[in-house]
């Protein structure tokens, strides 16, 4: 391949030679999957595992939302209720969101996007997946044994002394899975440093690769702190070593500091990859170079760094000094700036584009809306006097779901639809996909917007029984959750359908410029038949001197390699 502009299309017009010989046909036994070191297969192993967890977490929440239709705590017992929302939190955060984009699309796409054969440490990569599975088994064991009721935050001294749930197995699950994150991060960073194809300079990396790089850095630096925190908590619970117990000289707030030192950066582990995905997709469907490439990179690095200094904004009412509150509030305003700039740049990317509205782009528009909304409400929460009123209410619940579900999960689905043809070699039904994207957007807003209102009215989170005046909002929210549930289930159906019946996609159905599109779909075992060489910056959707035209797209479709 000569370069990644016009020449790229040259390549993609040639019929895909090795349709039979690709990573999927390279060994068909179960064993060949379980001992695979192919980053693409590992990505798929992750995808299957997190899908299972997504549905476990969703079912837990479905029961909770049903219970919340009435103010009285009627459907399940108090303890069951507490266990359900804890399960939802633990599973969704550690077994779905954190691995979601990095471990699936990151694993699959990262080497392809930089023109590598695999990640730097393929066996370590498989080890990560096994660690994830072992952690997952602990978590499932904990659920089967009877569950845990501490909330995903494991606050002491409740978790270390008072809870009757299976705290230690739950913590062990998270602890072990944490190592899977750390190793994945390590692997990605090494891969990006050492396996870039000739010509792939740092500032020619697609933004998704930068997103993986910054995410990995955060994973490596933050996750050990989580491991440590959970160990200390377990030591107090199991051996009675007083670390957080104030009655014996411990510090009850220490736990929260440690926990949020990890868990705030964890939010960026979830959102940075989403930002990477959106940058790929906006450029592709607007046929436009990304606006302000280098700013986009600096913003991600900035978010990753500053993200480490805002953890105290979770503790404005916990009993931290007013001065600390001020500093953390300030840092939280600072970290909002790069996120805002990214939103502006995505918007500007659409300017003078040739926009088409395929489903991945629709999901990204949804992301933009929900992420911006979530981010702006984040400013509200960064303001100390407002946070005093709003923390631990549904306002916070709504805020972080806008970011983590509205943002990250929308981006996850965008990525799924964007790269599905590459991964499987098949096209899905576009009409259904658009319908699901729109349904998801409205379902999401119906679920979570009412929570802002009831939160401002003072509805505390994690409440099984509540005052009757909040009922209307809970009913709306539950109705929204039903719509959202349908929107999440739909892709499962038409994507599965596409596996058998879908049109063949050809190497580059979207006429996208990334290196991953310059090889067959599905890619061969070693990704590229001839190692690609990069001669230009990414997103060459139009020439320097002209705006984007679209003719080649139609030619491409007509001559498609179907």
């Amino acid at each position, binding site marked *: 391949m000569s370069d990644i502009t016009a020449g790229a299309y040259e390549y993609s017009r040639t019929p895909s030679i090795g349709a039979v010989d690709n990573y999927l046909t390279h060994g068909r036994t179960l064993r060949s999957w379980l001992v695979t070191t192919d980053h693409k297969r590992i990505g798929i192993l992750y995808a299957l595992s997190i899908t299972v967890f997504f549905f476990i977490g969703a079912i837990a929440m479905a029961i909770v939302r049903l219970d919340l239709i009435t103010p009285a705590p009627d459907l399940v017992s*108090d303890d069951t209720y*507490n266990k359900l929302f804890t399960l939802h939190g633990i599973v969704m955060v550690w077994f779905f969101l954190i691995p979601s984009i990095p471990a699936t699309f990151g694993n699959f796409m990262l080497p392809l996007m930089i023109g590598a054969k695999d990640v730097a440490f393929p066996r370590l990569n498989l080890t990560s997946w096994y660690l994830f599975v072992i952690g997952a088994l602990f978590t499932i064991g904990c659920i089967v044994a009877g569950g845990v009721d*501490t*909330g995903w935050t494991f*606050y002491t*001294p*409740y978790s270390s*002394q*008072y*809870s009757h749930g299976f705290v230690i197995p739950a913590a062990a699950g998270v602890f072990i899975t944490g190592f899977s994150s750390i190793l994945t991060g390590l692997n990605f960073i090494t891969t990006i440093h050492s396996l870039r194809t000739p010509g792939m300079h740092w500032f020619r990396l697609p933004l998704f690769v930068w997103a993986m790089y910054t995410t990995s850095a955060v994973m490596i630096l933050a996750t050990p702190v989580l491991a440590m925190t959970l160990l200390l908590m377990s030591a107090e619970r199991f051996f009675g070593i007083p670390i957080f117990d*104030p*009655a014996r000289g411990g510090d*009850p*707030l220490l736990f929260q500091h440690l926990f949020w030192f990890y868990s705030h950066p964890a939010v960026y582990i979830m959102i940075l990859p989403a930002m990477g995905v959106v940058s790929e997709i906006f450029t592709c469907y607007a*046929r436009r170079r990304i606006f302000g490439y280098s700013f986009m990179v600096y913003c991600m690095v900035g978010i990753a760094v500053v993200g480490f200094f805002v953890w105290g904004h979770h503790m404005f*009412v916990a*009993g931290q000094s007013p001065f600390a509150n001020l500093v953390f*509030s300030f840092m939280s305003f*600072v970290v*909002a*700036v790069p996120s*805002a700039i990214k939103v*502006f740049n995505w*918007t*500007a990317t*659409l*300017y*003078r*584009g*040739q*926009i088409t*509205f395929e489903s991945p782009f629709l999901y990204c*528009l949804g992301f933009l*809306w929900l992420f*911006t*909304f979530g981010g*702006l409400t984040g*400013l*509200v929460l960064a*303001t100390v*006097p*407002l946070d*005093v*009123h709003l*923390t*631990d*209410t549904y306002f916070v619940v709504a805020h972080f779901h806008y970011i983590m579900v509205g943002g990250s999960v929308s981006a996850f689905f965008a990525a799924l639809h964007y790269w599905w043809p590459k991964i499987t070699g098949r096209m899905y039904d576009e009409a259904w996909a658009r319908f699901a994207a729109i349904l998801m957007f409205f379902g999401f807003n119906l679920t979570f917007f009412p929570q802002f209102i009831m939160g*401002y*009215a*003072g509805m*505390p989170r*994690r*409440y*099984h*029984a509540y005052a009757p*005046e909040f009922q209307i909002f809970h009913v709306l929210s539950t109705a929204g959750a039903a719509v959202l549930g349908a929107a999440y289930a739909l892709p499962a159906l038409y994507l599965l359908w596409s596996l058998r019946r879908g049109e063949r996609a050809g190497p580059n159905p979207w006429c996208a410029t990334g290196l991953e599109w310059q090889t067959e779909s599905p890619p061969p075992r070693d990704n590229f038949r001839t190692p690609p060489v990069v001669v230009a910056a990414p997103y060459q959707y*139009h020439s320097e*001197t002209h*705006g984007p*035209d679209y003719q080649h797209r139609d030619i491409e479709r007509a001559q498609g390699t179907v």
Partner: protein
Amino acid sequence: MEIGNLFAEASQNAGVVDLDFLVLTIISMAIFLLVFTLVLVFCIRYRRGSNAKRGRLPEIMRREIEAGWTAGTVFLALFIFWWAVAAPAALQGQPAPALKIHIYAKQWMWQVEHPNGAREINTLHLPVGTPVHLLMTSQDVIHSFYVPAFRAKHDVLPDRIVELEFLPTKIGTFHLFCAEFCGTAHSQMTGQVIVMRQEDYAHWREVQPQSETLAAEGAALFHSLGCSGCHDPASAVHAPDLRGVFGHIVQLQGGRQVVADEAYVRDSILLPDKDIVAGFAPIMPSFSNVVNNGQIESLIAYIRSLSPQESAQ
């Protein structure tokens, strides 16, 4: 009854918080509208095949605009931060001979003790227009005292006394919630804040069963549990005389000093080895498996009554 009113503002601070929120909402909506008007306009104007002008971006669009909105966002963020800090600062310096009320949180109830010793559970009576200063502690896990109508909240930690101040401005009944997850019945750890006219409050407080009754119970326990066997001034055992201890400074072994407040007395009974009074041997047994919470409250009330100016407060 204000409880049905979702957005009742019942403290001096509430209005300030709501104003903050309003201003931030307006700024946010402006940003949001700006972004999404642009997105909408671009999506329509630059949809594929439309005959809008394309071509390369003007040079100014790249550098100036980028630098411009970066600076703009930084400035806006700093401005909001400064403004949010300045607003509550203006409130500070309330002239305050505040009403000091003790709150004891435990799974899953709020115990309240008024300055004259009047007690209540899961209700908090307050006079309107008087600054209130809550001194709160938890007996077990972390709870959080939250009155939405006051826009006031603070976590209540075990073994620490945390403070919360507010000034109720509206007569009515408001929700009291526990906002920090604290176990099985977290959502039932709720109560009511009843704000009354000042004279009603004074009257209400007077007719409450006073702590004298508690103190009497405590005195009886003090004998039946055998405390008096050591602590009676006439006793042969070398143990401190508890008269006048409450509310005063106690010298501890190792040179530390503490003020003998409720938490201290409670600890002395439950965890006597934690703080040893200077000059005494650590012979006092722990009563943690002997007395229940109610009995401790009575004992504390009794010991408090041994310090005349404290109990008269």
